[in-house]
């Protein structure tokens, strides 16, 4: 799930003070299974999702939190929460609304289409919505914890030809540019990108708030629009086919050895050394 920050286009942005641009933002939220005991389906086509409680992807929560914080700082005009999935994924949009998003868009994808829905399809949807809603900023979670793809943000940016600030651990709006501190293998990288842009949230970007009771009740009045992928001109056909999903191999029993020589001998036998 990401937070679309929709806004007026850069040409006619509202400015209430020099260098202070008001954006609207959009978040795309992913609805995925809670981390309980995951089982592979008997036909090895995937993981059992029936009967498993689902909730918002943790990185998406962080994305929503960032968008809401930007709105609270009055740097962003409107936060729109988007989710692609079956009816039930509306729950996550409601949670985002309870956290402070202004309205939601549910792109209904169910059945076979939902099983094959992947980053490419979602990013096409996000790109279409960004154009439709005139978004200035798209914030997504860096990856979903069920498939760990880490692709949607990057693909969305490419489709829109927008700059991207991925693995963001700090985001600062600076006039019509965005300063992003990114978590990379070697440490932290700071970049400055133009808007409109796509950001993906990493773990340390913020700590998501709990939805408070009054906000949950206010969320009832906020609108969730229903949209079909076809209406956005997006073809959901997947180019990927899942061949097999398997359990990780069973852990084998270990072996006890008496001496270091034995250990080295055994390792050589197994071709490890």
């Amino acid at each position: 799930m990401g937070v679309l920050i929709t806004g007026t286009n850069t040409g006619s942005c509202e400015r209430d003070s020099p260098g202070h641009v008001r954006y609207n933002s959009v978040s795309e939220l992913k609805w995925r299974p809670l981390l309980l005991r995951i089982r592979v389906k008997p036909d090895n086509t995937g993981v059992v999702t029936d009967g498993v409680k689902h909730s918002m992807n943790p990185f998406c929560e962080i994305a929503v939190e960032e968008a809401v914080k930007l709105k609270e700082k009055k740097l962003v005009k409107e936060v729109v929460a988007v989710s692609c999935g079956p009816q039930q994924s509306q729950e996550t949009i409601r949670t985002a609304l309870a956290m402070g998003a202004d309205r939601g868009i549910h792109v209904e994808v169910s059945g076979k289409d939902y099983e094959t829905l992947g980053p490419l399809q979602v990013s096409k949807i996000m790109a279409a919505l960004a154009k439709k809603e005139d978004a200035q900023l798209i914030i997504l979670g860096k990856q979903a914890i069920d498939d760990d793809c880490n692709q949607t943000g990057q693909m969305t940016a490419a489709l829109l030809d927008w700059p991207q600030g991925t693995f963001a651990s700090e985001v600062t709006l600076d006039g019509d540019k965005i300063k992003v501190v990114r978590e990379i293998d070697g440490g932290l990288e700071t970049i400055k990108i133009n808007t409109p842009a796509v950001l993906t949230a990493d773990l340390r970007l913020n700590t998501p708030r709990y939805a408070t009771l009054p906000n949950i009740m206010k969320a009832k009045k906020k609108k969730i629009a229903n949209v079909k992928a076809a209406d956005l001109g997006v073809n959901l056909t997947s180019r990927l086919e899942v061949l097999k999903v398997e359990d990780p191999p069973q852990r084998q029993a270990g072996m006890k050895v008496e001496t270091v020589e034995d250990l080295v001998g055994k390792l050589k036998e197994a071709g490890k050394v």
Partner: protein
Amino acid sequence: MALRSTVCRLLVNPHRCAFFSASRAQGTAAATRPAKVQFDWRDALDLEGQLTEEEVLIRDSFRTYCQEKLMPRILLANRNEVFHREIVSEMGEMGVLGPTIKGYGCAGTSYVAYGLIAREVERVDSGYRSVMSVQSSLVMHPINAYGTEAQKQKYLPKLARGETLGCFGLTEPNHGSDPGSMETRAKYNPSSRTYTLNGSKTWITNSPVADVAVVWAKCDDWKIRGFILERGMKGFSTPKIEGKFSLRASATGMILMDEVEVPEENLLPKAVGLGGPFGCLNNARYGIAWGSLGAAEFCFHAARQYTLDRIQFGVPLARNQLMQKKMADMLTEITIGLHSCLQLGRLIDEKKAAPEMISMLKRNSCGKALDIARQARDMLGGNGIADEYHVIRHVMNLEAVNTYEGTHDIHALILGRAITGLQSFTVGK
């Protein structure tokens, strides 16, 4: 919105999977027989399906808070008898204090939501839930139901935010089940337009650190009325009760009043007689009916996991019939208890509830929860007496929960009177 939430309710139940598994479904492709329903021991009669989307969101959000923020504190808070005053402010921020009150910074949600909130807090600790109940039902509720507009404006928003902590003074050292013969007196002074309060109250949750107290006293006309006392009033003191082995994470004390001058603006005008305090108690008892089942659920789940993990004589303890029988009993009582609480909550929301209904469920939930906790303690064996496993803490706490807000026996008498028309509280006719 109503339509959407109905649709959502029908579809949003991940537990109620319509299809047993992918491979099974293939075999019955063209058949129209009803899909097999999977039994879910966590929610045996589908309570989830009876809740509105809003109630589910509220419960989920608050459950996350309780597990992430309250659970880590409770072990040492209970062991060292420390009351974390901060939790009141945190709960205030979450908007769960006085949740059923409309306006004054309160959420204005349903009684069912209040019950769900109580259940989540008590899943962590009954002491924390007592603090929440006192603030919501015994302090905010009387001010809202019996107070003047000025009093509501002055006290409710701060109480809702958790800025001000309140307590409820009814029980006395010599008058517990029998509050009607209380000895605390409120004498009116026409010259200064104040009341002078004298007396003592005991077993008062929050009193040692409370900022305000709603105290019930007998006036010159022998009628009981409620007064709002504030910390700092001369003659008002709140010593802590030491040596408690129950609700240790919550501060409990006395309220001692020695010629305390209370301005007449602090009188709650709309409560005259015992109906006032009882109205508050019923409000709290409803929350307790839900709450104690939360504690019972924790103990049941803990016992289940423990007996699945612990191997004796080559098999998990859970393989044994004695263990399974105990768990079957726990599951049944918790499930039945929760659904009756849901029905009660809906009746209260529709204004169709009588006090005896609340008595019945408070009594049932607390009695059964105490039983379940004790059984669970037994199932955990030696580890069951260690506070690290938490069950013993619930056992200790539920002793108090079974007793306060009307003992198990007193509620039986309330029901007995309703059943027979004959009172059995007093010896005389």
